[in-house]
């Protein structure tokens, strides 16, 4: 299932949290050899994890991390603006309507639908919160995966070659795209909405009547 968890609430999901940060070490250090910091517990974290980001996490039936991404508003510090502005035309991309998506990570044994499910979650957030765009940093393998799930971003800048290539890209979603992404992820919009509401609260009927 999809979970939406702010950093300060990860403490309530220790297994999910630890397996996410370990899978991130596995993806970004072991497989991609990015210059990331891995602690003595084999977990990868950076300074943006300290900013109370919103994590979207695919939880496996066993309760472990299957894939995840990390969201932050571009009105505060972001990886794209701090480290990749040379790839975005030389200045910050800043708006409360544009969120940054980074550390898009898939566990080694992740099912085929996990990347699509995470994309669908991104669509839910846009749809429900009025967010209009994501800007993201991702590796070469993710380019192929995004293409495979039918959610290729607009790439606005790249550095490096081959499997070492790092890209900055933009996503937006329309209502149509949301349904299409759901279909490709093998999920119904009803289930997706349920998971979203479990995290952010169900829309209860008239509050006066319930008060």
């Amino acid at each position, binding site marked *: 299932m999809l979970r939406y968890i*702010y950093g*300060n609430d990860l403490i309530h999901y220790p297994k999910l949290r630890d397996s996410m940060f370990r899978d991130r070490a596995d993806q970004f250090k072991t497989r991609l050899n990015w210059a990331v910091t891995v602690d003595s517990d084999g977990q990868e974290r950076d300074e943006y994890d300290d900013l*109370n980001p*919103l994590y979207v996490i695919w939880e496996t039936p066993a309760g472990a991390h299957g894939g995840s991404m990390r969201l*932050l*508003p*571009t*009105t*505060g510090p972001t990886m794209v603006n701090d480290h990749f*502005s040379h790839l*975005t*035309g*030389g*200045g*910050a*991309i*800043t*708006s*409360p*309507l*544009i969120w940054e998506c980074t550390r898009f990570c898939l566990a080694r044994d992740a099912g085929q639908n996990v990347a699509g499910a995470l994309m669908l979650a991104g669509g839910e*957030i846009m749809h429900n*919160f*009025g967010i*209009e*765009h994501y*800007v993201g940093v991702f590796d070469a393998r993710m380019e192929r995966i995004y293409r495979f799930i039918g959610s290729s971003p*607009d790439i*606005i800048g790249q550095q490096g070659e081959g499997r070492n290539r790092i890209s900055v890209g*933009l996503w*937006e979603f329309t209502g149509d795209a949301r349904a299409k992404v759901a279909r490709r992820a093998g999920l119904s919009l009803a289930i997706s909405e349920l998971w979203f*509401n479990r995290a*952010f*609260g*169900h*829309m*209860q*009927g*008239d*509050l*006066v009547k*319930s*008060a």
Partner: protein
Amino acid sequence: MTVAPRLRLDPLLSALENATELAQIQGIIEDLRTLFGVDHMVYHWVSAAGDQYGCGTYSLDWKHRYLDKEYLRVDPVIQGCFQHFHPVDWKRLDWSGKAVRAFRQEAIEYGVGNQGYSVPVRGPNGQFALLTVSHTCDDDTWSDFTAKNRRDLILLAHYFNKKALDFEPDRSPEPSQPLSPREVDAITFLAMGYSRAQVAEALSISEHTLRVYIESARFKLGAMNTVHAVAKALSRGLIVV
């Protein structure tokens, strides 16, 4: 409720940007409340230490009551928004606890309304604030209202907060973020009357990428829409046509 007409929103935004004292902000938020056609609009700054500051249209009685009873500790809107950055329809919050139910009943008696929508803002160094609109109406009316206006409300929340930060004692105003070269290009072409498709083609970018540059430029310029953003960029001499 009516959707805020753009033509009248822009002068209020300019007034907000040029405000030099708190009393002016209070007048602006009252006008915005009228413009959006809701019962209340409130800007509320809460520090990590629990200090509060704000302006808005709630009755004085309710403000005093809220402070006297330390409702900050009970209010699910504060609990639900603090440290977060997604906008919240009050219907998604947990109003089930006994103290919370009593708080809610009282808020309604004091005229806050049965509907609400709050936009949290994360400022620098852990600063936190909310912009809230509240109203009395049925659920369908409210969801229509929020769907139509949430974009403007999100931007307004940030513009109010920027101004509030400027008013902090011993604090120099946040420097305006410079437009990036790409944003300058995009706004310049728009100012010259090119269509979006033409601008995208001229800059060799997709229309989607262009929308992102325009969105970012709009926010940096403190504008609600593209026409306003172009006018501001021109008047500040940021673009030359």
